[in-house]
């Protein structure tokens, strides 16, 4: 057991640090979000009306691109850096330490790997380089109003008509769809087959005729999600990735990405440190509750729990670094990290007492730009998306512990 870097790991860490020191744009370094929050992250910056935001986004992407670090996990032949899982981990760690916005989004994390594994040469040529150049941003169309945890029951129909599929139906929770150029989706091509075996994986221009996005404003009054409607949307058959009716399995494709979730642990740890720093300032003292002792032990618990999450992340990358595939451990990370996020936002909000009301980041009554109260609301879906915590516990119990399925 060793929590420290090997000499090779230390050297790579140094390389990433030096790169950040040299290349990370000032605006990102200062964390200057103009009070907007990096809502939608780099993707939103890229399409901003503000030329400074646009230029910053492209400047950062260009710098990363020269190192192959837009998609560090992709094989070199496809324009990635072919980093090992432990190198990816170090890369992700260092980027998270400075909260650097990450270009690439779903294109790098999901569509790219799927195309690399299942795509034709033509599809690879069409899509991969545009993801890396930032020319095309991708959104995901998986969930439907009637298909959440039970995703395989999705009903959006794709009916073959010559060289095209005709799509009708609805997707929901289309994150960042309004900043995206293309959409990848799971659609039903065989309604008679067992539910996992009648699904295909298709991609389409998000401006396709008949495809409509409608903003779905979340409880934090933010536009992150959309509903996506398909009315006779015509998608060329050549836009299908993988075989027809094999889309469920195509959609499960994973490249050798590190899956530790280290970025979350780092941001939680930084959050506690920033509160401490803030409370030591004159501005901070103005907000410090008189009965601070009622919060401090709770905050100590959160710090300890953050350490637990770090270790869970280190465990995952240790497993991957030994050439093994994590089993239930990945579900433990997701479940634990999500619940910790919610506990943290509750504790952090508590630190401000009545000031925990203030939502407006620009208000003079807002401690730390109201980030904690915003996170209190913003962390609500963490235990729901990407497999709810109930599903994660089911997976841990059945796949991990071998308990019989219900």
């Amino acid at each position, binding site marked *: 057991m*060793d929590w420290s870097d090997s000499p090779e790991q230390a050297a790579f860490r140094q390389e990433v640090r030096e790169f950040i020191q040299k290349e990370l744009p000032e605006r990102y370094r200062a964390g200057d979000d103009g009070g907007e929050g990096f809502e939608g992250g780099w993707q939103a910056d890229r399409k901003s009306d503000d030329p400074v935001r646009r230029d910053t986004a492209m400047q950062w992407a260009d710098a990363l691109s020269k190192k192959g670090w837009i998609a560090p996990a992709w094989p070199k032949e496809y324009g990635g850096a072919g980093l090992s899982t432990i190198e990816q981990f170090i890369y992700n760690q260092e980027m998270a330490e400075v909260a650097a916005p990450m270009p690439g989004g779903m294109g790098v994390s999901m569509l790219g790997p799927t195309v690399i594994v299942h795509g034709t040469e033509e599809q690879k040529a069409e899509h991969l380089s545009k993801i890396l150049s930032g020319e095309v941003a991708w959104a995901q169309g998986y969930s439907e109003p009637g298909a959440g945890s039970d995703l395989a029951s999705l009903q959006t129909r794709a009916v073959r008509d010559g060289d095209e599929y005709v799509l009708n139906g609805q997707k929901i929770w289309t994150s960042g769809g309004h900043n995206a150029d293309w959409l990848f989706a799971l659609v039903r091509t065989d309604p008679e087959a067992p539910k996992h075996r009648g699904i295909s994986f298709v991609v389409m221009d998000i401006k396709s005729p008949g495809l409509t996005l409608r903003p779905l404003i979340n409880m934090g009054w933010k536009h992150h999600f959309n509903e996506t409607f398909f009315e006779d949307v015509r998608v060329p058959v050549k836009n299908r990735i993988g075989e027809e009716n094999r889309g469920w399995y195509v959609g499960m494709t994973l490249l050798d990405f590190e899956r530790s979730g280290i970025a979350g642990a780092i941001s939680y740890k930084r959050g506690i440190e920033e509160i401490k720093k803030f409370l030591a300032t004159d501005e901070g003292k103005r907000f410090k509750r008189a009965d601070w002792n009622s919060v401090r032990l709770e905050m*100590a618990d959160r710090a300890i729990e953050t350490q637990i999450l770090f270790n869970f992340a280190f465990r995952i990358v240790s497993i991957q670094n030994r050439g093994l595939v994590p089993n239930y451990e990945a579900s433990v990370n997701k479940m634990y990290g999500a619940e910790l996020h919610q506990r943290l936002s509750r504790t952090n909000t508590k630190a401000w007492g009545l000031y925990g009301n203030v939502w407006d980041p620009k208000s003079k009554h807002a401690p730390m730009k109201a980030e904690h109260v915003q996170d209190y609301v913003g962390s609500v879906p963490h235990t729901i998306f990407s497999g709810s915590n109930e599903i994660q516990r089911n997976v841990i*119990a059945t796949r991990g512990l071998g308990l019989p399925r219900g």
Partner: protein
Amino acid sequence: MDLGLSETQELLKNAAREFLENECPETHVREMEEDDKGYSPVLWQKMAEQGWQGLLIPEEHGGAGFDFLDLCVLLEEFGRALVPGPFMSTVLGGAVPILEAGSDAQKAEFLPKIASGDLIFSLALTEPSARFDEAGIETKADVSGSDVTFTGTKLFVPDANVADYLIVAGKSAAGTTLGIVATDQPGVKVTQLQTIARDKQAEVVLDGAKGQLLGADGQGWNLLKPVIEKYTTAECAYLVGLSQMDFEIAVDYAKERVQFGRPIGSFQAIQHKCADMVTDVDGSRFIMYKAAWSIASGQPEADTSLAVNMAKAWCSEATRRVVAHGQQIHGGIGFTKDYKIQLYFRRQKRAEIAFGDSDYHREAVAAQLGL
């Protein structure tokens, strides 16, 4: 960066598991609950032949020269098998203080006999005030040259009933002072307590008990700090093994126990408890090893101290959650004396509160973080 065991540690773990499954079955654990000594001298000697009492002791003093992380790997197995007896008392409460503070002569006198299984030690630290800090030490220490005489009452001294020597902490004019005190003298009176874990803890009344000074007069607390850090981490390792086994027993039971025509482990109400148990056990394991690694690799003292506080704060509470779930999953049968799960539940409490419970260590974490 790697959170797996080394090859040597895997070997140690596997050898220990096999040995303890044979030599320390449930029947032995139960026998020792009702035994006056609370340990088997035969097993004690066999453990010495395995090199365990001397695991941390350098080869020049008859030990195996392993490091503290290795010891924690072994102690996980001790927790798993609920090994009764004075092993931790002797290793953490005897060998470790002598390694930290002993003169060359003291090391030569005691360490080989600890390694060979010929001597049993224990640490006489806590008193009726039941505090773990320096202020809790009120026993009087009179120092005269290299001799020291203690007068006072020590409480919750583990395995004092069988210890040949106690490492006693007292207060002299110069401050906290340690001594090595033989128990076979009129000034040492041991009264056993009946405890929740049915382990052997005692009240030890020292009335002019004579011993040899361990470390310099007045330096006792500085010398004890690393001892306490190791002992605390060792208790965490024991808890990890204990809770791992409790969890495994509960999962096996959930697979076998049938109600409503199906194994209760097929119900999500039970499944989700099991998922929480494995999360707590795994979380305990890695935060314990982080502390053990910090100690073994000589990380800066502030980091080590924080890692140990975090480990005990977490392990104390997380393993309590595990054994509580273990009981609930078993239903009524788990509440009987005959069924094994209760053995873990009762022992968890002893280790949970040894060297401070979650509240104690959480406070220390808050202080160290400057909260």
